[in-house]
Each structure stands twice: as structure tokens, then as C-alpha cells.
């Protein structure tokens, strides 16, 4: 405890001396898990529509999927969940799942292949934002009757061409692969919305938990699903409370009002490390922090300039100071732990080299560019560090801070110079990032491929796009990995993306809380293995 805190405490205690005694620490009930997290991004609980971090966290515990990860062993990759087993057809286009027997939804209805068929078709027909995760395999509202078919105890899905099976199954572990209780959902259908409106605020799954209450920006409460095929869970109730400030989360954790705090700043993490009865977990997540240079900007389209900029980032300085423990240097587009991920870090702060490159490029005295960044403190800090180091090579960076949506609008309209932001993978397959960082078949404005980061930065890469396409259909795991490795090395050299860091989530928890998995880089949090 530092001087200031002791001083305040001293004064306060002196004031209160003899009047009040300091009460014992609060304690959460033994069968209840209380988590502080920022959950203001949840807009719906419908697995066919939910596409945010906090939403995935909830969905993951409510909806079982055909295949899923074991939170106790994430490295093992996907494994059976509602599907007990599966086979792949000769031509590699069809996968047939055999359903696990005797599984019930929370409602008491049995989980059948028909429910799985309904759920996947529903995701395609509703065509909500995350539907691309499935529709990239050629499923359309028109063809689902043929391509997603239940037969007795089996479900067969047929893709438009041959894809790596791991690619397809990885995608089915995403939130959109959640299997809903078709009977319950259809009862609540309004105007042919396939229960979309009802599922926004209600759940009908077969996972470990059911949703009891969701108050936007306040809290989400889950209770154990008595019908879960995995058996009884230790935490009968899980409450996730929205707490914006890191310091507030830490206070609550220190007071014992919560069991887990998920959005801690490095300073608060350091504080919690010193506190009795509290521990800090670090888990590598999938999110990457990167800077990208719009190739529509004449100066930034110069490859020498791009390279110079990559040498003007103080990777170590940031990692070791204000990003300490929360981000680790990572310079390739696939997050560590993904298939084919590499840990090459060719770039480091080298002002002289950058100056030389700039001179070669014809800008010995530097230039002036704008950088847009979202209103989030760590990003603003990174921006200021960039501003500082680049100034040393004569480059003047003007920072514009805006709200997330504002910055994003500019980014999608390709009107930025430099964008500083983060990218999180959508599903646990390397294509999720390759398909956006290294894929841009049509760079024209008319293409409007706003979902592709390469397009957003006006980076024309016809050949690399083909290499990316080739990688998704390669069925040999090692070959596929090698293809991604090569792709990333090339990308590292030539792309206008300066990928800088990968996120580490640092979680503070009470010592007695065991078995909490945040899902690593590939999936969402799981509560069912937690004990206290």
C-alpha cells in the first residue's frame, strides 16, 4: 500500500476511531459465481445474430453446438458435443453428423437432428451479420433445403466445393453454430421472424446454463440447466455485472463482492497480485492490435515508406510499459495458437534504418499524415507513442480520436490515412484472418468489400488473394499450416499492415475460484467447470 492510500486510510480511520469497526469482507454465496465485465456490447442473445464478445460469452454457456472445444483442454481442438461423431464424404463436400442420444433441451424437449437442421438453416435464412461464417461454404436461403438435411438421427451438410474439414468444423464452433430448441422457438415466431425477436431476450438451448435475466448494460444472470447432459454444475448461478472502470472492478474484487474481474488495467493487475486471497490469470486471446496505412494515400503507398514506418514503432517500449502484461509483441496476422501461426518478429524500433528508408523513398525530411483511433485509452496511448517515435524520423502524425462507430465509418469509406485498431478472429480457423488481411480480389471502390481489411486499406493483391483461397481447400493439416506460414511471411514484408501486438487477457479472481477458462484465442468463456 502506498503513502497516499495509507494517508487517506489513516485519516478516515482516525475519524471513525471507536465509532465503527471495519466490517468483515463480504463474500459471495458458495454456489454462485459473480463476475465483473464490460458487457455493454450485448445486443441480442439469438445465436444466429449475436456477434459480440460478451454476447458470445453468454451464448457459449447456453447453447450446445454440434462440435465444441473442451475448456479444460483447448489445445486439443474441436471435439464432439451434440454430435457424437461425424463422417466426411468421398468428395469432401458432405459431412454427416450422428447426434448424441438422450440429450434434452432446458425445456425438456429432446435434442434431435431436426433441431440441428432447423438451427443451421435458420442462421442462413435470417442472414444476420455473422451468417457469413456459414454462408462462405455456399449455403444460401434458397439451397438450404438441399444442403442442410436431417435424416433420422443424422444431419448432413453439403458445401459448394471441397474445403478443409477442419475449416468447416471450426466454423461450427462459432456462436452461430448454437443449436436452438426448434419447438420452443417456433412457438414464439412473429411475422415469420423464426423467433428472432423472442430469442433476442430469451434462450432455448441445451447448454449448461439458461438465461434468467438480462438487463442491458447492467447484468446478465444465468442459472444452471438441470437437463444438461454434462451433469450438475457447481455454480448454480452466474451473474455477470457490467462494471466500466478497471479500478472499480478491482475494488469490488478486493472487497469480495465479486469473484472475477475481467477488465483490469496493468496497474490494477499489479495491485491485485499483491492482495491476499486474489490471483491473476493471464490467457492469450485472439485479438491483434495493428496499424494500417491506406494505399490510396500517395506517400503511404510507397513500399519504402511502409517499411520505414514498421521500423518506427517502439514495440518493446510499449509492451514493457503501459501495455505490460496485456499485450505481447506479435507481428503476423494469425494469432498465436492458430494453425499455421508464426512468431517471427522482424521489426523493432530502428530510427536510423527508418530514416535511411525514408530518404530512399524520397522523404528525407518526413511528411505529415493523420491517424484515426477509437476512444479507448490503451489505443490512444499507443497512438501517442507512435506519434512520438515517428516524429524522431520527421514524420508528423496528427491524431484524431473518435467514437468507435465514427472511426469505423471513415475506415470503411477508405478516407483515413492511418488507422490504428484491433481485429479479433470470428471463428477458430486461420482463414478468419487470412480472409481479411490477405484477401482482396477486387480493389475497386465499387466492389464495396467493406468487410475486408485489405480492401479497406485499398491494398490490391490479386495473387495473394489466390494463395489465400488455395489454403482453405487444402485438407492436409501440415501442408495447410505451411501455406499459412508462407503467406504470413510475405504479408509481413509487403503489406501496409503493421501488426504489433496480440492481446493477453488478465483476469483477477478470488483464490478459491477454480477451473475458469476464458476460451483462449479461439472460443468464449466457459462457466461449467468452475468450482469454488
Amino acid at each position, binding site marked *: 500500500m502506498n503513502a497516499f492510500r495509507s494517508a487517506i486510510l489513516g485519516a*478516515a480511520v482516525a475519524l471513525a476511531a471507536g465509532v465503527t469497526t471495519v466490517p468483515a469482507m463480504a463474500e*459471495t454465496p458458495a454456489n454462485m459465481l459473480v463476475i465483473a465485465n464490460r458487457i455493454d456490447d450485448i445486443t441480442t442473445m439469438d445465436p444466429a445474430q449475436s*456477434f459480440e464478445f460478451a454476447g458470445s460469452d453468454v451464448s457459449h454457456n447456453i447453447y450446445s453446438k454440434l462440435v465444441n472445444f473442451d475448456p479444460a483442454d483447448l489445445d486439443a481442438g474441436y471435439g464432439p458435443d451434440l454430435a457424437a461423431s461425424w463422417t466426411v464424404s468421398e468428395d469432401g463436400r458432405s459431412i454427416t453428423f450422428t447426434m448424441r442420444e438422450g440429450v434434452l433441451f432446458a425445456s425438456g424437449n429432446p435434442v434431435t437432428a431436426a433441431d440441428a437442421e432447423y438451427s443451421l438453416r435458420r442462421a442462413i435464412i435470417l442472414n444476420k451479420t455473422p451468417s457469413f461464417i456459414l454462408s462462405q461454404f455456399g449455403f444460401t436461403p434458397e439451397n438450404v433445403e438441399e444442403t442442410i438435411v436431417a435424416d433420422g438421427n443424422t444431419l448432413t451438410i453439403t458445401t459448394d466445393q471441397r474445403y478443409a474439414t477442419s475449416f468447416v468444423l471450426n466454423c461450427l464452433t462459432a456462436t452461430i453454430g448454437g443449436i436452438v430448441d426448434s419447438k420452443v422457438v417456433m412457438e414464439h415466431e412473429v411475422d415469420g421472424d423464426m423467433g428472432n425477436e423472442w430469442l433476442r*431476450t430469451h434462450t432455448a438451448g441445451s447448454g449448461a446454463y439458461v438465461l434468467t435475466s438480462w438487463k442491458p*448494460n447492467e447484468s446478465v444472470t444465468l442459472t444452471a440447466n438441470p437437463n444438461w447432459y454434462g451433469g450438475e454444475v457447481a455454480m448454480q448461478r452466474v451473474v455477470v455485472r457490467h462494471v466500466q472502470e478497471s*479500478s472499480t472492478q478491482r475494488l469490488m474484487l478486493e*472487497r469480495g463482492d465479486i469473484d472475477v474481474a475481467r477488465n483490469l488495467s496493468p496497474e490494477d493487475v499489479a495491485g491485485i497480485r499483491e492482495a491476499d486471497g486474489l490471483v491473476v490469470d493471464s490467457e492469450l486471446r485472439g485479438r491483434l492490435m495493428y496499424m494500417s496505412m491506406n494505399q490510396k494515400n500517395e506517400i503511404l503507398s510507397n513500399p519504402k515508406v511502409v517499411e520505414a514506418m514498421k521500423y518506427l514503432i517502439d514495440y518493446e517500449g510499449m509492451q514493457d510499459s503501459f501495455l505490460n502484461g496485456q499485450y505481447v509483441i506479435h507481428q503476423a496476422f494469425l494469432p498465436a495458437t492458430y494453425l499455421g501461426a508464426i512468431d517471427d518478429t522482424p521489426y523493432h524500433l530502428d530510427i536510423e534504418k527508418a530514416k535511411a528508408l525514408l530518404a530512399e523513398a524520397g522523404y528525407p525530411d518526413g511528411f505529415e499524415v493523420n491517424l484515426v483511433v477509437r476512444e479507448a485509452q490503451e489505443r490512444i496511448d499507443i497512438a501517442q507513442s507512435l506519434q512520438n517515435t515517428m516524429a524522431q524520423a520527421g514524420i508528423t502524425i496528427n491524431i484524431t480520436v473518435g467514437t468507435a*462507430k465514427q472511426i469505423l465509418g471513415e475506415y470503411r469509406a477508405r478516407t483515413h490515412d492511418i488507422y490504428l485498431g484491433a481485429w479479433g478472429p470470428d471463428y477458430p480457423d486461420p482463414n478468419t484472418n487470412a480472409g481479411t488481411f490477405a484477401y482482396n480480389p477486387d480493389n475497386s471502390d465499387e466492389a*464495396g468489400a*467493406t468487410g475486408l481489411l485489405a480492401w479497406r486499406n485499398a491494398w490490391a493483391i490479386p495473387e495473394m488473394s489466390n494463395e489465400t483461397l488455395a489454403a482453405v481447400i487444402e485438407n492436409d493439416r501440415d501442408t495447410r499450416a505451411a501455406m499459412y506460414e508462407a503467406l504470413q511471411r510475405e504479408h509481413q514484408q509487403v503489406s501496409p499492415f503493421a501488426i504489433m501486438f496480440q492481446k493477453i487477457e488478465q483476469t483477477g479472481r478470488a483464490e478459491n475460484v477454480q477451473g475458469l477458462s476464458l476460451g483462449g484465442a479461439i472460443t468464449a468463456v466457459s462457466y461449467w467447470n468452475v468450482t469454488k
Partner: protein
Amino acid sequence: MALAETSPKGRRKSSPFTRFLIKAGKTVMAISVTMLGLLFMTFVIGRVMPVDPVLSIVGERASQEMYDAEFIKLGLDKPIVVQFFYYIRDVVTGNFGISLRTGFPVWNDIVRVFPATMELATIGTILGVLIGVPLGVLAAVKRGTWIDQIARVVALIGYSMPVFWIGLIGLLVLYGMLGWIGGPGRLDVFNEDIIPPVTGMILIDSALARDWFIFKDALSHIILPASLLGYYSLAYISRMTRSFMLEQLSSEYITTARVKGMSERAVIWKHAFGNIKVQLITVIALSYAGLLEGSVLTEIIFSWPGIGSYITTSLLSADMNAVMGGTVVVGLVFVLLNVFAELLYKFFDPRAK
């Protein structure tokens, strides 16, 4: 009214009831015009925001087709006048649309968050009045003395305090270190969802349910943020009270009361204070309205799910339906409070009749 003919101005007009109707009509007109202006402004803000409402709905990864479909669904292809008309029509029918950020109808969100703010602002105002009024009276009576100076400094400190900083320090000391008060939020997490919401104000709901345990918990959570807000309103109320009292204390009727041989206490409270009550009502109503809309930063610091943080966070995430709806409701409450204060004025001040 019976006294009409003795009134010095004695305007002979139509019957009192007609006059009342005209008055009421005028008030309603004024409110409607203000609200229409408010709607117009919220609409303009919604239009000029450099944030793409469609993008806010479909999200970052959406395809162009999805985008276009939503664009048409929102009616953004229609002329702007038509859009404004639709907007007015929706609001009048109580339809503020769906909040993009929460996925709920904005109206439901407001019904959920507004009582939280109201509870906070009410307790804050009560504290502000209970302490601010006597402090202001004391300062006026003891004008120029050290008591007046202390009251002045106390009030001005309240005005000058950055609430986001003092709120954090308060939480740190009173909650984090001493554990005297509840933490952020309205209740301890494990006490949530126990009391069925009736008014949405937990103190009232738990009192209705006679669950004093929850009541105590809610009280321990509200006390610090409400005190901070209360301090702010205390500052305002005490300064205004002092100013009003000074004006009254220099009046002749105060001398009259003293000549009668009244004690100073009776002179101050019965006569001088009796005359500022009405003005105070207006001040208190204004400060209450101010707390209702001005508690944004307090709500953020204390994770208090109220209307201020609702509108602000909606604005920051370009959830224009929520911003417009919230603003309209807060504006309406503000206007109604003003009208209410005016009515009270008429009710309490014999001169206004």
C-alpha cells in the same frame, strides 16, 4: 374568485373556468412547441452525426447487400422531410424504435433506467434541501461573519469539485478500504432480482415488500453517489437561499415583525422564510431537473444504470434511437418540472392568484 372585485386591478373577464381553460391551453401549447423543437433538434443531431446508423446496426463485418437492405428498412432512402414526419409520428405514438445497443425497444430501456436516476436524484435533492436550505438561511442571517464565510466555502467547493475524481476517491476510501458503504451498482450482486420491481426505485420497492435487508443494502449503495449529487445541489440551493433570504431580511415587513416583539428565530423562519418558500420551490425543481440530466459522470463512476449514462453511452456508440428517445424524455420531464414549479408557485404565492 370572490376577491376579484376588491382586487386593485379587478379585471373583469370571462368566467374563472374559461380563464382556466385558456391558461391550460396556453401551457399545453407552450409545452408542445418546446417538445416539437426538441424533437426537431434531436432529429437534426441524428442526421448530422457523422456516424452511419445502418453500419451501427449491421456491424463491421456486414456485406454491402445487408447494408443496403437495412438502409431501405430504416427509410433512409425517403426525403428528409418525410423522415422527420415519420419520426414525429412514431414519437407521438410512443414508439422510439429499437435501441441498437441493447436490442430492446428504447421505451422499455427508459422505463428500466429512468427510475434509477430518479431515485438517485431524489435522494440527492432531499439531502441538498435538508442541508442546503438551513445553511443558506444561516449564512444570510449571519451575513459577513465567519459562519457565512464557511457556508460560502462549503458551497463553492461543491461547485468546483470534479465529480469523477472525488467519486473514485470516495469509493476507494469508503467502500474499498473501510467497507462502510456498498460498492458500485444499486445492490450487491447477489441481492439483485429478489425484489419484484413495482416503481423501479429499489428503496421504495423493498420498503413495499418489507424486505429491510435489501432496503439497507440499497441504501448503502445509494448513499455515496446521492451525497455527491446532493452536495452539488446543496451548493446551488444554499447560495440561492442565502440570496433570497438577504433580499427578504432587508424588507420593511421584517422590521414590522421585529417591532411587534417577535423573536429573531420567528422573524427568520415565520416571516422571511415564509416569503422565500415559493422561490425556493422553483430553485429546487430546477436543481432536481439538473440532477436528473446532469448525473452522467456520477452514474458512470458508480456503474449506476440510469438515464444519463444511458444517453451518453448510446451517443458514443451511435445508438441514435436511444439518444433521441432519452433526450426527448429528459426534455419532457424538464419541461413538466418547470410547469409543475410554476403551478406550485401559483398555488403557494397569494400574489400570483
